[in-house]
């Protein structure tokens, strides 16, 4: 380290050039590294392969040879049975309705709250931000009993609204919007304020059009949360008519496991996980930003 600080300018550029090439070229290590990475990738993907291949195998084939990795004959029979006899159509509609409520709720609530927290000077700002942090920290297991009692009292037990309500304004979304809003220069908003624009006009006309990337991240993160959420819908939904996909899948598979109907279970697993995986492939950047930015999903 001392060598670099002591050296002359011209000397230094020459030295860093050699150092850089020394760092980059590692002819022996690279193939080994790639081999290790490929092995890890295959292990990571193995469950997906099991799930998808198993869902395409017939009941007889799975029963006679449950351990085989690839199907001998492809069939979509498991998927047909899922929607014909197991009510997965209804579960899917429920999941989509809940996700739509959650996404819209989060965009509205988080844009407004995030903007206020980042861009407005007001009494109680620290308190409000404390509420966001507290909401992120309080574990679900600590509050679900009163949450359930409240939901019953409001007459929302076994309804889609009851499932969606606690997730309508997730602290994670507010946090994402607040971080993004902080990066928008104050001068932009201050100029409008001097021109006599009201706070609401500034919010809708100036701030929101600039907040597109944060809105996109919030949309994807709240969709992911809502689609994958399991324990709360499991508690609130009591009849199949209000089951979301994960709850319906868990119920179906409990029954199917007794008769070792693995094909049906795996087809259900594929139906539940595939939409999110496809979205992820196309919108990876937002998923990674959202999860890395807040450390949660």
């Amino acid at each position, binding site marked *: *380290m001392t060598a670099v600080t002591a050296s002359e300018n011209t000397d230094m550029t020459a030295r860093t050039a050699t150092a850089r090439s020394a760092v980059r070229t590692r002819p022996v290590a690279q193939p080994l590294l790639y081999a290790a990475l490929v092995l890890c990738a295959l292990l990571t993907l193995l469950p997906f392969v099991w799930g998808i291949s198993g869902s395409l195998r017939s009941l007889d084939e799975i029963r006679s040879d449950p351990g085989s990795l690839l199907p001998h004959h492809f069939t979509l029979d498991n998927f047909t049975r899922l929607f014909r006899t197991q009510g997965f159509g209804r579960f899917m509609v429920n999941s989509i309705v809940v996700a739509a409520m959650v996404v819209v709720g989060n965009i509205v609530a988080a844009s407004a709250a995030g903007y206020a927290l980042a861009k407005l000077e007001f009494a109680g700002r620290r308190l409000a931000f404390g509420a966001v942090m507290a909401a992120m920290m309080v574990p679900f297991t600590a509050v679900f009993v009163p949450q359930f009692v409240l939901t019953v009292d409001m007459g929302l037990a076994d309804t889609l609204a009851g499932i969606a309500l606690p997730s309508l304004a997730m602290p994670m979304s507010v946090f994402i919007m607040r971080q993004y809003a902080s990066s928008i220069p104050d001068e932009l908003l201050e100029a409008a304020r001097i021109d006599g624009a009201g706070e609401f006009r500034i919010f809708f006309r100036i701030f929101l059009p600039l907040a597109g990337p944060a809105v996109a991240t919030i949309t994807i993160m709240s969709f992911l949360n809502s689609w994958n959420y399991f324990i709360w819908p499991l508690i609130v939904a009591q009849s199949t008519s209000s089951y979301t996909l994960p709850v319906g899948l868990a119920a179906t598979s409990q029954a199917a496991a007794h008769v070792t109907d693995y094909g049906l279970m795996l087809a259900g697993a594929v139906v539940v996980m595939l939409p999110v995986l496809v979205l992820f492939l196309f919108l990876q950047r937002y998923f990674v930003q959202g999860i890395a930015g807040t450390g949660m999903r």
Partner: protein
Amino acid sequence: MTTTLTPRAPRTEPRGRPVKAPARARSQGLRRTAVAWLFLTPFIVVFLLYTAIPTVAALGFSLTDLHGADLRHPFAVNFTGLENYLRLFQDQTFLRDILNTAVFVAVGVPLTMGVGFALALALNSGIRRLRGLFRTVFFAPVVTNVVAAALIWQYAFNPSGTVNKVLGTFGFAGPNWLDDQRLAMPVVILLGVWRNFGTAMVLFLAGLQSIPQDVYEAAALDGAGKWRQLRHITVPLLLPTTLMVSVLLTVFYLQVFDEPYLLTNGGPLGSTESVALYTYHQFGVGEFGVSSAASFVTLLLVALVSVVQFRLLRPRA
């Protein structure tokens, strides 16, 4: 709303004596405060209904003998003080579940971090080809639905499943993984690790990329090998990231519910029942008071860890 708010400003203008200026500033400040809280209303309503009030209520419930059947007869509920907590810490089941949860944290956190850190290092070691593809693959489990993943686990680890078939080809008799008191826990933790190492990897990658490249170049010039660079540059400079990741994962494993619930429902013989699952099972049999007391123990543990988390997140916020 914009039209009603904007014209008010000029009205105070004509009276503009110097004395009035602070008053005007104050009324403007008041208005801005009102507007800000109006913006915050949707979040605050949900926060009060589903976080603040339930937290207080859970503390209240934990001090009563509230049962599921009492929801329609609120006057049948009695205040019982700390009885639920005393019961908890005399309950062998609860003590066993605390131990189980400790195993989830003690094994799950280092394993998840280790895998995430190793992969982050590999992806950050200057390789170009397929880097994006690898990152996508390693992150995919994070977005995968846990119910779906657990079903695949059950399928793979069932007595005649793929895992045992592979073991069979090497001449081992495969066990009944999820029905074995010693083997169920590792399989459950494996699912947790699979679902979480991607998050750790992405956070470590971000940390690694924030270390300036010249530090390594200078060290290389001074003759430091790869191993010494890792030990004396990467590890110390990554400390904030490492702390953050460990706190996040600790909080996750402290509350672990989905994995044991879906794979074993806490079995066999309670060997994989976590504290969160205990809370849920007590709730399921209508013991709302005991359930709340158990959940409050979790809350205290998570709060303890979260205080650290808050201090870590704050400088960035």
